[in-house]
């Protein structure tokens, strides 16, 4: 049974098809990468998978059940988390609070309890805080626990977004170019982090330009070009696919 299945997914912007009748399936537990040249529709696809854009046509299934969510927060509640290509950090909060905000789905509290600081809430908050601290440590940011988010360097912010997304305990985590703008040693850390996330049983969808990272961590790769599927398969198949080499890898690596 696939975790996520898309059928005939399309998205038009004023007549331009950014995503064009796309079918794919993501198996649970895998690292599923989406690659393609700039403008291929990768981020548009992630935006559809998280409810930020509504598809012009097509359907999505989660666990073979039609995904009926409408607003992005409902996609999150269904178990889909993500990070952003251009950072979307809560810069008005501390690093730890960013991650605590990520636990929102697991911290339901009533307005009255919040206003009156009910004892149950105090306990829940303590648990939330320590869980958030664990996650910061998990992504290697324990040193920044008390820092304001706007005091963190760029590479740390990338990992802070991952920690925040993990805090929601997603089943499917979408990473939008987590290595962009990072130096080689930071990219190696991201590589290791993705493998550890995958090791937790979380299915990862990776959108990335860094081919070394993609080919190293992925079980399956989907190649997009002009919003259409150019190829799909394991890293070996994709690497040797002549159409992929011609359209994409050819220009980049050789």
């Amino acid at each position: 049974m696939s975790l996520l299945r898309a059928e005939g997914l399309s998205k038009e912007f004023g007549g331009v098809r950014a995503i064009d009748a796309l079918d794919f399936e993501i198996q649970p537990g895998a690292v599923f990468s989406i690659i393609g040249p700039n403008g291929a529709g990768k981020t548009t696809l992630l935006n559809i998978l998280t409810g930020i854009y509504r598809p012009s046509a097509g359907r999505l299934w989660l666990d073979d059940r039609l995904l009926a969510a409408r607003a992005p927060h409902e996609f999150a509640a269904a178990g889909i988390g993500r990070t952003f290509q251009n950072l979307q950090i809560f810069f008005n909060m501390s690093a730890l609070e960013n991650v605590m905000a990520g636990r929102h789905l697991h911290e339901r509290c009533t307005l009255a309890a919040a206003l009156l600081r009910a004892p149950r809430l105090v306990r829940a908050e303590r648990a939330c805080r320590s869980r958030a601290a664990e996650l910061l440590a998990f992504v290697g940011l324990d040193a920044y626990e008390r820092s304001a988010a706007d005091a963190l360097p760029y590479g740390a912010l990338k990992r802070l977004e991952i920690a925040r997304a993990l805090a929601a305990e997603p089943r499917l985590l979408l990473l939008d170019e987590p290595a962009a703008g990072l130096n080689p040693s930071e990219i190696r850390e991201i590589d290791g982090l993705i493998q550890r996330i995958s090791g937790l049983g979380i299915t990862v969808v990776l959108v990335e330009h860094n081919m070394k990272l993609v080919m190293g961590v992925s079980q399956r790769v989907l190649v997009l070009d002009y919003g259409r599927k150019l190829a799909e398969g394991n890293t070996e198949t994709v690497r040797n696919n002549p159409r992929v080499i011609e359209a994409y890898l050819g220009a980049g690596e050789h």
Partner: protein
Amino acid sequence: MSAQLAQFLLSGLTVGAIYALVALGFCIIYNASHVINFAQGEFVMIGGMAAASFLGAGLPLPLAALAAVALAALIGMALVKFAVEPARGASVVTLIIITIGAAILLRGLASIVWDKRIHALPAFSGEQPIEIAGATLAPQSLWVIGVTALIVAALWWFFNRTLTGKAILAVSHNRLAAQLMGISVRRVLLVSFGLSAALGALAGILIAPITFTSWDVGVMLGLKGFAAAILGGMGSGPGAVLGGLTLGLLESLGAGYISSAYKDAIAFIIILVVLVLMPGGLLGGRATERV
């Protein structure tokens, strides 16, 4: 068309033209600086009050009007130089509060320099009403509508045909890129605030013979101008004109057919409905968030 309806339409167009001028002022400053200038209404007040006092000092009307517009433009430029420039980098809300402070300051100054009485300007070309489709129209209304039409045409020419106008548009689209192209953002700000203030003052002078003027007329006129600019879509010049005329007509028709006490309320209810249905105003583009 009934004479009554024609009457409402004509008076709606007159007041709508004034709103359009004020809205254009909001729009020009917003485009150049992303500031909502809540002192915009005070320029309208300064125009009317200054013209009345220059006239009282013995200047002929055209000269008094010119001097009043020039004075407002100078104050507008002083506002940008001494209040907006020094606060560069502050948040938009902070800048808005600064302009509110400036509005209070200007209102206070006006009440001291002039007085707290109501003043009037004589109509530019007599009071003999003109009859159109059974409705009567004061000649001053023709002045208001005509001058507004001229101004709109002149502004179109300025922003599309002159280098300074294009520079202002460039800054509004992309400040950094404009700067790299050698456009002086400071000069653009100066020109936009001066121009907006002059537009406001002109509106104040045009309307003063019809509605009179006093030290505190700026609040309501500024508010209506802002509403018109938003209704049309903030930052859109044609939107400001359309918004102004729409608001004027709504008020006039609402006052005529429904309730004069509730004319402003009717206008604002319709603005609310328009905004809910078209969150970017009548002519505003739908901005999509890029993530």
